[in-house]
């Protein structure tokens, strides 16, 4: 079974969102997603300052056998990216909800309406056999 921390919100496309105290959000991919991809070898992140649109591709994660787009779960502006992933993409495999975070985003107002809670995302995974 995949880990689905209760304190995060999720997109159906397997990204997670963490609310930070300053009103920004942290974004990464879920345990289910990292497991399905296998050993990651490369992560392509957006430039800081880029405007993201909810549901649009904003990053790429690449394993030996697959390359997959990461879709931004929120609209907003990129504040920071996890530079450590450039040299150690395996952080996502090891700690996808921690040191494997991908970017911090300042969300535009009211942009996170479509996200799921942990229970709903767990149900979603069950439905796809994950």
């Amino acid at each position, binding site marked *: 079974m995949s880990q689905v921390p209760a304190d995060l919100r999720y997109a159906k496309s397997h990204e997670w969102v963490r609310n930070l105290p300053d009103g920004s959000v942290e974004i990464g991919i879920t345990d289910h997603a990292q497991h399905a991809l296998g050993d990651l070898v*490369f992560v*392509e992140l957006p430039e800081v300052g880029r405007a993201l649109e909810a549901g649009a591709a904003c990053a790429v994660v*690449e*394993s030996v*056998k*697959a*390359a997959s787009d990461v879709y931004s779960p929120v609209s907003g502006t990129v504040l920071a990216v996890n530079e450590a992933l450039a040299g150690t993409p395996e952080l996502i495999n090891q700690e996808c909800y921690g040191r494997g975070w991908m970017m911090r985003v300042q969300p535009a107002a009211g942009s996170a309406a479509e996200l799921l809670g942990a229970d709903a995302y767990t149900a979603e995974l069950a439905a796809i056999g994950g």
Partner: protein
Amino acid sequence: MPFVPHTDADVREMLATIGVSDIDALFDEIPPELRIAGLDGIPVALSEMQIGRLMSERAQRDGRPLSFLGAGAYEHHIPSAVWAITTRGEFYSAYTPYQAEASQGTLQVIYEYQSMITSLTGLEVSNASLYDGGSAVAEAALMAVRAHRKSKSLRLLVPATVNPNYRRVAVSTAGNQGLQFDTVPYVAGTGCIDREALARHGGADYAALVIQQPNFFGQLEDVDALTDWAHAQGMFVIAVVNPTSLAILKPPAEWGTKGADICVGEGQPLGVPLSSGGPYFGFMTTRMEHVRSMPGRIVGRTVDLDGRPGFTLTLQAREQHIRRGKATSNICTNQGLLMTAATIYMTLLGPQGLARVAEESRARTRALVELATAVPGVRAAFTGPRFHEAVLRFDAPVATVLERMAVGGVLGGVALADDYPELGEALLVCATETKTDEDLRRYVEALRGALR
């Protein structure tokens, strides 16, 4: 039956195993109205002896004229060992090295090829080949647009001194994705990019400037200044180079202050026969930071389960069989066998041998130009340093000149009127290391005869 080993007994027993009465029954899922009775438009079969005779007759009809043609395909001596080894069945009839353990030979050749091409061009990474020089330019244009993070422009500057057919291939290949190619004229006296005209594009948003060195006319461009100008404008530089020339000319990685960003070219001069235009191969190198934007296969060195060094296709996630609609290119099969030939060619020539080919080709072309321009009514179109091609201008119509020379078995050059009408009656000529003093004398004699 040619190339089918089955005996009648085999067929009977195999049908019995399947459980059908005849081979035709195996096609029972095809709607009967679609079936055809035969292929009457195909000639009857020829034996090996018969086809050998036919092909020999046709080859002899084409003959072996003395050729001074270049324009993107060059006649060089090819060491005997190159094709003796390349056509070994183990290379010739192998598949793409997807099963790495059973393809170490092909994979190591690609790794060695990548090592040689990166060293020739000075850039850090190479792919395992593209179709040809023209398609390599098209792929480089697409790659530049993809890799350029600061500019989202779909426009590129492609000077008129870039091979006209490469420009055509780029338009046919990349035009569908909205790429636009703006041309830049050349200076009438030197045949090199018109820097003043180029400067007028300053400040506009272009993804890249394409620079061919030596250019289509054989003239050497001021690549340092051009590269620095393009970089100052925020453009990438795509170098289009002749690999033979790189034995003596400055590699693209050293152009200007920062060097070219992407380098491509036609690999044919490296041991590939002229063969009416193909199969050749295109090469491509780039900086490490752009490796994931590069199309085509790439081989990496790694280790196996026991820690033994070995080779495998890597970064495959960029490619069509995994990334499908989002791949960097649709390229799948490339030109592996030609790349193999080129690797053996570069090995046999080595740094000194390849430099000699380059020097001697320059020397022969210079001698040809001196002899030809001594003929009344013939002059060199451009001044300035060249590699191994030159443009000659004539007072007489070149079409007639070429026809007359060809009757005498001499192919006198490539007419430029279609692509460069402003040059008037002009020919692009080339003499490589294969041309002797006697050959040059024959050229001039044929030329004098044709002008008479």
